[in-house]
């Protein structure tokens, strides 16, 4: 994607990719039940020796106690304070310890996001800790986590309707909400806060499925970058990976900057680029 270079994304992207590859090779060895020490190694791989503090003053992570549907587990990250000029969250990394590719996504938050609350959907393969690690503007990391039980014996983190997923790949939808459901801020400037959701049709294929005839793994094919702007200004840039569910969806906030359009560019691992723009609806007419 030309022009996609927000907020140091490239460095982290290499990290996401290498983790995905490394873990894929170890798939067979990964236990279904969470190993206590998974995080110790993961933390080192993803964040090196940076200290990570308790994040309960910054964000709340909401996830179902069980991955009812292993392929689509809704995750809400609720920011407990608005983004302020001298105190804000720069990035949020979503990690599912026991998944074959534990880093589900890295969200790079633009200045106009207003509130760092995000909702998305992930695959959860096994009993696992799910973590959100927020990086503050001063570089300090803060973490919150939840434990999610695996689904039962007959749910799998697989695409429900592969033909449909391929046939409509790249189709996008922007939902615009009239009143933010999760707005907790009371400051006057926040009264303008808007909420929207970008959805894209994509199989987000994990590449971890073996072709039974050839014994080769089917190549991964997933959404690697999502960039949402109002006018030219980046609201949100997301590095995705295979733990995001099929038909990736991200719900987010933004403070209107006067632009008339939301512009979205999405890129996948086969270098397909999907773009679409929508007129920003007035605050009263949202869906």
């Amino acid at each position: 994607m030309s022009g996609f270079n927000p907020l140091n994304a490239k460095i982290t992207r290499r990290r996401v990719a290498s983790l995905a590859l490394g873990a894929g090779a170890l798939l067979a060895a990964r236990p279904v039940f969470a190993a206590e020490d998974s995080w110790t190694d993961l933390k080192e791989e993803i964040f090196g020796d940076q200290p990570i503090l308790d994040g309960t003053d910054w964000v709340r992570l909401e996830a179902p106690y069980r991955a009812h549907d292993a392929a689509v587990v809704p995750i809400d990250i609720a920011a407990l304070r608005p983004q302020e000029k001298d105190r804000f969250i720069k990035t949020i990394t979503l990690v599912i310890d026991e998944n074959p590719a534990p880093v589900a996504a890295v969200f790079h938050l633009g200045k106009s996001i207003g509130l760092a609350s995000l909702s998305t959907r992930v695959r959860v393969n096994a009993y696992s800790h799910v973590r959100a690690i927020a990086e503050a503007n001063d570089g300090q990391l803060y973490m919150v986590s939840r434990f999610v039980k695996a689904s039962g014996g007959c749910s799998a983190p697989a695409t429900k309707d592969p033909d449909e997923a391929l046939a409509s790949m790249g189709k996008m939808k922007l939902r615009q909400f009239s009143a933010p459901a999760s707005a907790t801020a009371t400051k006057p400037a926040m009264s303008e806060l808007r909420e929207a959701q970008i959805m894209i049709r994509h199989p987000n294929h994990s590449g971890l499925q073996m072709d039974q005839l050839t014994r080769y793994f089917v190549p991964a094919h997933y959404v690697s970058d999502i960039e949402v702007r109002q006018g030219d200004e980046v609201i949100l840039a997301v590095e995705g990976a295979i733990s995001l569910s099929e038909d990736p969806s991200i719900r987010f906030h933004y403070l209107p900057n006067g632009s008339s359009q939301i512009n979205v560019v999405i890129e996948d691992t086969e270098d397909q680029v999907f773009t679409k723009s929508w007129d920003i609806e007035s605050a009263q007419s949202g869906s």
Partner: protein
Amino acid sequence: MIRLILIALLLLSQSAAHAAEVAPAEVIEVAPGAFVRQGVHALIDKSNAGGIANIGFVIGEESIAVIDSGGSFLDGARLRAAIRLRSDLPIRYVINTHVHPDHIFGNAAFLQDAPSFIGHRDLARAMQARGAHYLEANKLLLDPAAFDGTEVIPPSQVVETQSVLDLGGRRLILDAHQTAHTDADLTVLDETTGTLWTGDLLFQKHLPVVDGRLKGWLEVMDKLEALPAARAVPGHGPVSLPWPEALAPQRAYLTKLAADLRGLIAEGKTMRHASGQAGQSEKDKWLLFEEFNTRNATAGFAELEWE
């Protein structure tokens, strides 16, 4: 040499004795020559050896077809023992109505019969996408005595849209459907007795489970309703139900779930919120509601949000 032969014979008789030790499944003859083993209304666990689905067999004049093989090697072996109590005809077909482990994990128990394994045109793809995960997950849920020997065996013969199997004086009509309960649902109509084996396109008592498309499922139910059957064998529930009246409770639930979801989507609720709300009014009408309603609402939300 003689000693070696004796040892070989001894081993052979021991393995035969081992096979004979498998207690035959209890089956009910729902129509002449059509037998069903009722699954318990529970999640797969050690106490049930994976035997949670209705599975069974149809005996023709020349051969036998198994319709779903059960939730583990042991579950399949028990079904096979029940067949052998009743007939020595060859087991020529093992039909899998869809990819879920409680319906396909007994396949390996029939390998000794060298049957054709039969499934929907997309069953192999579904097995490829899910098989490894199912094996890993269910190995932990089951005792080795039940799970050992369990394999994912893809179809050797697929149904594109419709196929007919002849068991000798008895035809089975197999229909492959669009994505509904799953992306590879197959139904079997035993023409002779008017018995429709729905696989998991029909649930009763046990809450229906959406693992495909909610809207697709409602459409398929309308098509099934027109089939000339006297009774249905649902994938979960009683072994035999009057047709097409049996569709009513499931249709009511899925319709209510879809209506609730559409309302919550229009209100701008999140998936996590909506999945805890939709369908709740149906709670007292079903077993295993807590286990599956949130899952259904989650899958349905992701589908209907695109409308």
